[in-house]
């Protein structure tokens, strides 16, 4: 085989690989949208599920999902951004940062089912919260924590060192530099990470099903149980309750995730452009 032939075959393989992956993505989105979107009406979005989801809409699951995400973000953002601030501003690379980074990597690798088990045994059983928004929120917060840490760290590192120097020579403390210069300039990047983790959280099932529960009632207090959209979709599909509603729920899920990803992509680009 001549090098030229080999080159053509190899290139052909690479291209088809890339396009196969792209085709899979398009297929997933197309199928879900085509089969699901026609059933997504305003009524579907604003009615509560009836008869286990066979009829009615998904309103309570939307509320549960948003509630769950808000609680998990309230927990994960301070911890994640705080960790990133510590790693970039308040310490030098060394043993401690290495340990923290390794822990974060490992946490990112913990399978969601293990997180689900953990959340279940600690929050639901041992602490007696039962299945509820709080149990689910904390568990989900642990899941998205590594994402927020990593993206925030990158965003903070991208803030020019010279800004910190200016703060210092003008008599600012480190903390003032962080609050007035570092965080505002890292905000778009941090926000991108937050949006990405919202996308993760929306679709998560294994963690949520064992901690938030599966109640179809709309949660009010953080000690109420609920059912997220992803869990609802799983139950509808797996128990064969209603294919029509399963597709419609999936369409809402995938559509929100699409929007979120496009938005975060846009944010990231603006962020990169703003830098140069």
């Amino acid at each position, binding site marked *: 085989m001549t090098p030229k032939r080999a080159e053509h075959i190899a290139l052909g393989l690479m291209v088809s690989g890339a396009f196969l992956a792209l085709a899979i993505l398009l297929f997933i989105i197309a199928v879900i949208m085509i089969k699901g979107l026609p059933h997504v009406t305003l009524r579907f979005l604003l009615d509560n599920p009836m008869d286990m989801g066979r009829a009615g809409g998904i309103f309570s699951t939307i509320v549960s999902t948003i509630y769950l995400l808000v609680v998990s973000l309230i927990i994960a953002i301070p911890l994640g951004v705080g960790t990133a601030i510590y790693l970039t501003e308040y310490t*030098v690379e060394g043993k401690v940062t290495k340990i923290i980074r390794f822990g974060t990597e490992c946490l990112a690798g913990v399978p969601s089912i293990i997180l689900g088990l953990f959340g279940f045994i600690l929050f639901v059983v041992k602490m007696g919260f039962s299945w509820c928004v709080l149990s689910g929120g904390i568990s989900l917060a642990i899941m998205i924590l590594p994402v927020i840490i990593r993206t925030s760290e990158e965003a903070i590192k991208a803030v*020019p060192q*010279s*800004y910190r*120097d*200016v*703060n*210092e*020579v*003008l*008599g*600012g*403390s480190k903390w*003032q530099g962080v609050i*007035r*210069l570092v965080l505002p*300039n890292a905000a778009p990047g941090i926000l991108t990470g937050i949006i990405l983790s919202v996308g993760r959280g929306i679709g998560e099932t294994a963690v949520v099903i064992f901690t938030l529960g599966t109640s179809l009632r709309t949660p009010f207090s953080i000690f109420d149980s609920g059912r997220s959209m992803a869990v609802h979709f799983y139950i509808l599909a797996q128990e064969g309750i209603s294919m029509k509603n399963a597709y419609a729920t999936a369409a809402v899920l995938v559509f929100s995730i699409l929007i979120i990803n496009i938005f975060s992509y846009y944010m990231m680009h603006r962020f990169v452009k703003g830098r140069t």
Partner: protein
Amino acid sequence: MPEPLIKARNVSLEADGKPILKDISLDIFRNEIFGIMGPAGGGKTSFLRLVNHTFRGSNVKIEGRLHVLGEDVLSDEVNPTPLRRKVSMVFATPVVLPMSIFENLVYGLRIQGIRDKSRLREAAERGLKAAILWDEVRDRLDKPAQKLSGGQQQRLCIARAMALSPDVLLLDEPTSGLDPISTFRIEEALKELKKRHTIVLVSNNTKQIARVSDRCAFFLMGELIETGKTSQMFTVPREKKTDDYIAGRFG
């Protein structure tokens, strides 16, 4: 002989096992422009950073005494915040913060917790006038500072430092990236400033040192080769190395 504002006695600095400054002793007096010249890596920037207590490094070892405004800045007891307000520094490359011109100017006051509008305005105007930038930007103080030209940005940085009314202004190669006209403007501003302030000007442009400084020092590889009146150093230097450097024979 008046008491010097900055008094260095046998200052040695070492970081990462590498000597940066060796046994530096010099005096800088009130209302003078003190020039520091020398080839790259001579320790000029490091010296300035010692003066306002912003030198950072791993394994830093410091010896000697360095008194700035009567305070020993090498001791652990020094409170850097008020020191930096009295001894302000401007870097070689202009660093304007991504805010309006006005917010850049008053940054140093805001972090002191000053909110009073009229005080902020007053300080901004004082800074801009000191840096001879007032006439150029007076009607667009709320515009983003990053829109200014390079020379204006550098003068904005000087103005930002001057808004704090410091006693001493440390300038680290303030004109290294600028065109002759901007350079001229800044030099004019400096001559005006020294009436009420003390300026330490680092530059590897010997002509600039000759033009604006009253007294100067020559740093070479961490050593202070010679210090004295500028007029004397540029005409009858005591050291051969100084002569070579000024004549452009190295560096």
